[in-house]
Every structure is written in structure tokens, then in C-alpha cells.
């Protein structure tokens, strides 16, 4: 599957969406395989290590940790999977706005930091993948040519 076949108006948002859903997938589909795989493995490992440290109930809690959940949403598919696991394990705590006492606060804090940082790192990856897609690259070449005085 190549993204080059899509029109430019579709390609950029599609690359962004795929990078959001699975970190690094946008890079891989654009042909930057090593870069995409490095980002994918690192971000997914960071996110799930955070969940393993703090437990899914203490880490991915959108009603109790609203702003952290927004940061975690940067990893898209991983956060949705973790929230689904939270709902499956303990549906009442998933919707509670009170702290979940399934883990020591220190473990939960470390887990939240890991997952939040993974989400914010994936935002960088999404923006980079969108910037590397063909329409942006063509725009960059055109701007560089213009700045050098070429038509």
C-alpha cells in the first residue's frame, strides 16, 4: 500500500490519522521504514510500560485525570485499547472522578508520566510524518527554489 497514489488533499490528513492510530505507521507507508519502526517500537513500548507500572485503572482514567488523558490520546489506538481494557476490568472506576486505589500513588504517577510522554512524543511523530508527505515536500522544494531565485 502506497500513499503516493492518493491526491494531496487526502494524503496529509490520512498520514496524520494513520500516525495517530498506530505510531510510526505514517512514516512506514511514506517509505521511511526504519524511522517509522524506531518510533513505533519506542512509543508503544513507553506507553505499555507506563500502563504496566501504574496499572490500567490508575493510569488511563479520563474522568479522574482529564489533562493527562488528553496527552495520552496522542497515542490514539494504544490509549483506546487501554481504556477498553480499563472498562472491561473495572467499569465503575473507568467512569469515576475519584482516584482509584488499586496501586500505590507513586506507581500510578510514574505510569501516568510514561503514558502522557508517549502521547506527546507521538504528536511530534504525527507532525513530522505530515511534513514529510509529498504535498509538503513539494511546497518546501518550491519555497527553497524561490528563495534561491529560481522560478
Amino acid at each position, binding site marked *: 500500500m502506497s500513499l503516493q497514489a492518493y491526491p494531496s488533499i487526502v494524503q496529509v490528513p490520512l498520514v496524520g490519522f494513520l500516525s495517530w492510530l498506530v505510531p510510526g505507521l505514517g512514516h512506514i507507508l511514506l517509505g521511511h521504514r*526504519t*524511522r517509522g519502526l*524506531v*518510533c513505533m517500537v*519506542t*512509543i508503544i*513500548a*513507553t506507553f*505499555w*510500560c507506563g*500502563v*504496566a*507500572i*501504574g*496499572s*490500567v*485503572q*490508575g493510569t488511563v482514567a479520563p474522568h479522574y485525570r482529564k489533562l493527562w488523558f488528553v496527552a495520552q490520546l496522542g497515542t490514539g489506538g494504544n490509549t483506546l485499547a*487501554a481504556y477498553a*481494557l480499563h472498562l472491561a*476490568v473495572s467499569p465503575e472506576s473507568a467512569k469515576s472522578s475519584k482516584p482509584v486505589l*488499586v*496501586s*500505590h500513588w*507513586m*506507581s*500510578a*504517577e*510514574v*505510569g501516568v*508520566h*510514561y503514558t502522557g*510522554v*508517549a502521547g506527546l*512524543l507521538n504528536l*511530534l*511523530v504525527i507532525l*513530522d510524518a505530515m511534513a514529510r508527505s509529498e504535498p509538503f515536500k513539494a511546497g518546501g522544494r518550491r519555497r527553497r527554489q524561490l528563495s534561491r531565485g529560481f522560478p
Partner: protein
Amino acid sequence: MTAAMLASLFTTAMELSGRQRFFLMLPLCLSIAIVYKAIRNDSMQRFPIGVLTLWVTIVMGLVAVGGGLWVLFRIMV
């Protein structure tokens, strides 16, 4: 059975001491260094040394900031 064991890995929190919490900063900083360098480096040849340099820089910076704040706290309190 395997799915239940895998799920329990993510539903049971780890017990951490204060010292262990500080050491968990190291892999997090490594993740930041890897992703940043993967995005910024045009060539992957200098990637490992770039990651190592950035990782050491981040950790030393955090240690310096933490040490400075600790000294300030000791002086003022």
C-alpha cells in the same frame, strides 16, 4: 489463559520505592532521545551516538536542575 495473564500484567500495579522512581526516569529520557533523534536525523548512521549524547545531556540536565533545587530548598528552609 494467556490473554488473562497478559491482562493481569496491565491491571496489577508495580510496587515502587522512592529510589526506584528516580531510576525509572532513565528509560523515559531514553525514549524521548530516541524519538527526537529519529525525527531530526536525516541519516540513520549517526543515530546511536546522537541518541546517547542527547540521553546523557537530558539526564545530566535533570540531575543539575534537581540538585540545584535541593540546595536552594536546604538554604531557604
